[in-house]
């Protein structure tokens, strides 16, 4: 067993097989396919603006007192369609301001807000209450909304600029904008291979693989793609798990936070030592668990970087180790699955390994990318056929070989 780290082992293998670009290409094209497409995104934006109008109308408050703020993956641009579902989970926070919301009763406020969401069920579907939000299923759309009502907390009495109803604590602090901003600032960090001097090698490398039309060649947005990849693996890994395990499934905000912290740390300490995006992705995945803190009592902390008082891992400390155990088990499996996949040569991979990370959609995309090679060179293929030779399948054709001169 080698003592090289996960990311080093894979990188060496990728260097050998020269598969880096093809794997990156597959990842990016897949992740793009699993995102909310721009048309649906625009449609969703229109819907939540319309929602704001209706809420102002129903609650009889001025429209400028209703502020709709996207949060979660929509805000961090890390949405990914979960396996087995066609709908995207879009989170929005609706901030209600004005004298009426200076000091409301949390339960009444929440109920009143839920009632204000009614009346347009043909489009939104019937609202149902969750812990802190109302779900609007939008039955005919490729998404559903989790709408969280919030009120301003100008003196940060609960710790943040906003507070939201919490069934256990009455109010909880919320700062979706700051957290998203923290993440986006990190996602913008540039590694040296992405700069002008590093560009030459990337451009040169591009020449060696024919890009799919309109498909990106390399991982374009390393932190966001890492989060998407990791979330996709999580979704696939937990798809067939028991309900108990599903309860312990690592939540997105923890994944986003750990990835952001790891990414920033790598950028701060060794941004000059990478040569390709996939190396960074692997390093981030490797370092994610290092950012889980523990105190002397053994409690876990994944602090909200934009609200230090908030511990995203709070429930890890009260569930008899379920969530913490699941996190580390799943993370090990993530590393194992990625290593098993990426240490294979691209064209010699297999469906089981692809499915572990990308699900069925990954297998389909991989097959399509191989199929595409078979469909290339149509004119040459026609010319060969017109000579009377049956064109063979390239994956079973004899390799190009040269004369063997036995008498030399």
């Amino acid at each position: 067993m080698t003592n090289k780290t996960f990311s080093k082992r894979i990188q060496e293998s990728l260097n050998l097989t020269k598969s880096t670009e093809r794997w990156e290409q597959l990842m990016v094209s897949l992740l793009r396919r699993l995102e909310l497409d721009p048309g649906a995104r625009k449609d969703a934006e229109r819907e939540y603006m319309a929602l704001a109008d209706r809420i102002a109308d129903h609650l009889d408050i001025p429209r400028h007192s209703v502020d709709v703020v996207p949060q979660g993956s929509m805000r961090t641009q890390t949405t990914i369609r979960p396996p087995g579902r066609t709908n995207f989970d879009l989170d929005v926070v609706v901030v209600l301001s004005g004298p009426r919301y200076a000091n409301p009763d949390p339960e009444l406020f929440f109920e009143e807000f839920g009632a204000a969401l009614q009346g347009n069920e043909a489009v939104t579907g019937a609202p149902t209450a969750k812990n802190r939000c109302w779900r609007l299923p939008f039955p005919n759309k490729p998404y559903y909304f989790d709408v969280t009502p919030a009120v301003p907390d100008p003196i940060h009495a609960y710790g943040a600029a906003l507070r939201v109803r919490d069934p256990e604590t009455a109010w909880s602090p919320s700062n979706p904008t700051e957290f998203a901003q923290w993440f986006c600032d990190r996602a913008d960090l540039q590694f040296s291979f992405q700069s002008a001097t590093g560009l030459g090698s990337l451009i040169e490398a591009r020449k060696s693989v024919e890009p799919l039309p309109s498909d990106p060649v390399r991982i374009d947005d390393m932190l966001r793609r890492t989060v998407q990849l990791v979330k996709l693996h999580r979704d696939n890994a937990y798809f067939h798990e028991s309900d108990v395990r599903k309860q312990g499934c690592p939540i997105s905000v923890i994944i986003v936070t750990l990835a952001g912290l790891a990414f920033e740390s790598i950028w701060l300490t060794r941004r000059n030592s990478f040569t390709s995006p996939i190396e960074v992705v692997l390093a981030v995945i490797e370092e994610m668990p290092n950012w889980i803190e523990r105190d002397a009592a053994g409690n876990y902390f994944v602090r909200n970087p934009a609200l230090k008082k908030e511990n995203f891992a709070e429930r890890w400390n009260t569930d008899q180790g379920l969530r913490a155990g699941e996190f580390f088990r799943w993370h090990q499996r993530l590393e194992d699955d990625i290593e098993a996949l990426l240490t294979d040569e691209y064209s010699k991979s297999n469906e089981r390994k692809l499915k572990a990370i990308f699900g069925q959609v990954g297998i389909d995309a991989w097959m399509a990318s191989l199929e595409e090679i078979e469909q290339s060179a149509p004119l040459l293929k026609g010319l060969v056929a017109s000579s009377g030779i049956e064109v063979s399948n390239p994956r079973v054709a004899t390799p190009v070989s040269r004369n063997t001169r036995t008498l030399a």
Partner: protein
Amino acid sequence: MSNSPLDQSAIDRVRSWLDASDTVAAVGLSVAQRAQHIAAWQLKEDYPHLGGVRPRIFLSRDFPFSPLRIELEPSCCLRLPHIEANGNFCHGVVAAPNDLDDPVKAAGRVLEQFLDYVRRSADPEWVEEEFHRESHDYWLRYVDASSPPKGYRTDEILLEIDPDAKKPQRAGALHLGSRARAIVSSRDGGPKAAAEAIGWSLGTIVHGSALIARLPEDRRWTPSTWPKSFESLSALLDEITDTTGILTAWYGSRQWPNEAPLFVVLLQGSVGFGWRVIPYSTRASSQPRVAPVKVSRIDRRWTLARDHQSEQLDVLTHKRVVVFGCGSVGAPMIELLARAGVGSFEVIDPDLMRPENISRHPLGIQSNGGYKATEFCQRLKNSVPGVKITSHTMTAQSWLAGGHPPPDLILDCTGDRAVRMATAHARALGFGPVPNMMIWMEPFGAAAHVVTIVGSDQWPGSDPAETAINVAYWPDDVEVRHPGCGQGFHLYGMADAWETAAVATRRAIALLREDDTRSDVVSLIQSRGYFERVWPGITFHRQILIPSGAESVVERRSLAEALGGF
């Protein structure tokens, strides 16, 4: 003969087919191209991963005996496998039996191979695998394309080192007279001794050095992995030798003159990859630079066995063979045994090379007047690396009386009764049971005999060569007289001598390898009709049965059986 196609009909059919196709367009030929080609076409599609150029198809005058040629851009060489320096796609398609009947299909087979190539080369893994599979070829192209500074050009390193060494080695290096070739040798006396043994002239002697290491077999060796700078070569050496700074320590260990030949060689499997280290003072850089060099191994393992059957080669390398007679049979036997791997020879022959010997001796007119033994030994030294060979211009009898240590084998190729008797006598007395082989031919090459005596077996003092071994009774006048003392000769040709040498060499190798250590007589015998034709009325000692349809037989008898009552 005029510059006309070999098969106009085949060319016309392929031409019509391509002209009628809407996938290609005819293009003109340059004057130079016209010498070889009839016509050219260009495909109407391109492939971005093949440089985005539309491939050209060339039909040559000797089609279909030479296949269709497909050309990309020269810049594709070393970026893609199977593309030569001129952009030619090396498709490996050779003429097939039915190509004349179906020339369009013959052309189609090349295009099919190209289609397969277009598809496969989109896969970077395949590209790397192909580069690695023929890594030596691509390395040579890289060497050809490199341009080291003036005065630092080395076209080829001739490498003579222990190919088995697992650890890094250092060896001396010298440039040969031409300056474009260098010799690197770890033998005693270094490259100078190696060059002198082979007879290569050295230029102005500037001692240099080489650092040699082994590259792991599974290490991909492709244009994308080759170190191209001193720094990257240094990093690679650190890694494969597990020694930090091995290259810089060697390079900095002593001050060689600037022009000294300094090389790094990496061996992978049977092949080597070399670099010349060029001192930094020749350019504005603080680091030396490196230029790739072709490496040709000249060690015995490679030159005599291509790294195969090394154990058998090693056995022969340690054998010492004494050869009596460096004539028409002795000389080719020495050559065959040396190339088979026998390491040491002593060649004993007092005769001079004369013009009339040329018809059946490997030496030629340039050796006229020299001793056959001396001249032939020199020729062999110049031909076979590492062979130790000494000539003695004396008779075999004198040598036997000279008190030399016994060899592993005595080969008596003189056909001389006195030598046979003297050798038998020496074996019975001082030499002990040294294996002894006696080889001679009957006149006209009608038969050849290889008598092998080993262990305590003895060749009888009565020398029954003509009575017990020879097939026929040959009268005295079969020898052609020459007006000189003892200068008669028998009629036979070089083919007869070499056939005899081949049969005898096989037997000698079996003996030296200890595959077959019995005393025996191997005879190559022509048909009775042959004997009667070359000497009408000849009589025979014994009846030789030649199977119907055969012209000759190789017969093997035990020594006891052959000698019968002797």
